[in-house]
């Protein structure tokens, strides 16, 4: 038993899990507001990270400026995507909408490879100190900052949905579009806003992961990791998404620990979350916090 490794991996799990949680939240946001299952969520991270990299490396902007420009770009990106691609699909069968988002994912995947190449590229160093030690554990500075950012985003979401005009409009729209409209809420605007916010938040996660691991198409795997997180928590629960993300992060790292200590199979950490997903869905088919849809005939 290597206790310090276990602690180190647990901390890693929490930090990575918080990032999963953030991406899962932005996925749930789109699903809740516009009932679209977005298979291109991972590509939001990818596009955001590449755009930020481009600002920093090709334009030589300082990090804060490049980051702000990235957020502005992603706002536009989300808006345009919704208005141009998804708005015409409103009212079409679910399968068409899903195919469209899968298509978007493949398209942006390829576009990024075409523009930036197929190899991972590192971000220029951003923090003066690369690693800090927290209670004897080595942690990358970026990860610590990312944990702070994740928490800030989660608090921001909580504030947005409970206290702001648009958050209230979004909850109303998620509940019943007809009624929301009759109360003066513009449903197309709510849809567009949810895509923009989702793109921005995902891009933040993309930049953080990019700074740690370098930017490459591997980033879009986060879009797949999000599924166990989201389904675990319940498709329409923001809180569930956050917890689901953290659970997946922890499971991955604990599986890695068990694997490296005893089993030596090599890739347990990649599949462990999906096993857990199957088990949890057997017991709670709507996820941990999802809405039960019981139809009485």
């Amino acid at each position, binding site marked *: 038993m290597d206790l310090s490794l276990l602690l180190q991996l647990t901390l890693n799990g929490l930090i990575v899990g918080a990032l999963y949680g953030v991406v899962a939240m932005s996925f749930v946001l789109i699903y809740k507001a516009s009932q679209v299952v977005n298979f291109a969520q991972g590509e939001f991270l990818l596009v955001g990270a590449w755009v930020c990299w481009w600002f920093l490396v090709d334009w030589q902007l300082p990090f804060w400026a490049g980051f702000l420009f990235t957020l502005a770009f992603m706002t536009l990106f989300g808006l345009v995507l919704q208005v141009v691609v998804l708005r015409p699909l409103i009212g079409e069968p679910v399968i068409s909408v899903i195919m469209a988002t899968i298509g978007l994912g493949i398209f942006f995947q390829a576009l990024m490879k075409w523009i930036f190449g197929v190899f991972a590229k590192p971000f220029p160093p951003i923090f003066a100190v690369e690693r800090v030690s927290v209670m004897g554990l080595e942690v990358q500075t970026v990860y610590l900052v990312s944990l702070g950012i994740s928490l800030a985003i989660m608090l921001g979401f909580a504030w*947005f949905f409970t*206290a*702001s*005009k*648009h958050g*209230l*409009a979004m*909850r*109303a729209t998620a*509940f*019943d579009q*007809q*009624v*929301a*409209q*009759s*109360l*003066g*809420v*513009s*449903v197309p605007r709510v849809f567009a806003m949810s895509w923009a916010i989702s793109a921005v938040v995902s891009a933040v996660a993309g930049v953080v992961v990019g700074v740690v691991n370098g930017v490459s198409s591997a980033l879009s795997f986060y879009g797949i990791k999000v599924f166990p997180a989201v389904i675990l928590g319940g498709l329409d629960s923001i809180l569930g998404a956050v917890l689901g993300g953290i659970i997946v992060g922890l499971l991955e790292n604990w599986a890695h620990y068990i694997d490296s200590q005893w089993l030596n199979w090599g890739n347990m950490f990649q599949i462990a979350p999906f096993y857990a997903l199957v088990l949890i869905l057997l017991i709670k088919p709507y996820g941990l916090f999802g809405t039960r849809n019981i139809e009485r005939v």
Partner: protein
Amino acid sequence: MAEPSPILAAEGISLRFGGVRALTDVSFHVNRGEIFSIIGPNGAGKTSMVNCISGRYRPTEGRVLFDGQDITRIGTNRRAALGLGRTFQNLALFGHMSVLDNIMVGRHHLLKTGFLRGMLYWVGGAQQEELAHRREVEEIIDFLEIQHVRKAPAGTLPYGLRKRVELARAVALKPKLILLDEPMAGMNLEEKEDMARFVVDLNEEWGMTVLMIEHDMGVVMDISHRVMVLDFGRKIAEGRPEEVLADPHVRRAYLGEADEVTQPAEEVV
């Protein structure tokens, strides 16, 4: 018509779903400050009419004028901003939200502070604005006597209270004209009397024009200024309650009578 311009005028409204004619060439108007009721047997097209006015349906023919403006082609949410509020026949509250939040959604178009200014809560004027809104919302809550449940999730309330919360939400829009789709359906006598009183107070004290669909003939005849009767999507009568009750077409639609009127009007109620 000698009165000033009506607040709502429907001109030759027809609505077809494929081969089904829900409404055929219906024209009527609602004057400022009156309680106007639409009655008719089930399937007569009452709710379809209200949906044409609120924007849920787009009439196949004809046009809707609100406050002198043609609103036939504009979106539902824009109509709400112009001053057209409504409640639904089947309750449509946001079940997981508190009563207060439900009512605040009704004020959506009146809230000016957007996302960015909202973040500057104290300096951006958002606090001031929220206080002002909360005051008005509290006034509505007091008026409809739902103080005791203001923090409760709307989905947990009993039926009669939910109907009242829905009315409060529509009133929060500060509409010039409020559309009530069966506000008293499924209520007991006491609840009906309460609701009737609220509608009359809204009209007399708050100065709102009311367009109402209701099946309870007693209530309709008591509080309405004018009544329109629909049957199979056509208008068969319009006028003051006692005129409408005496109308042979109406009696035939409701009672299946032959043309001659044999019973005194009161017994129709």
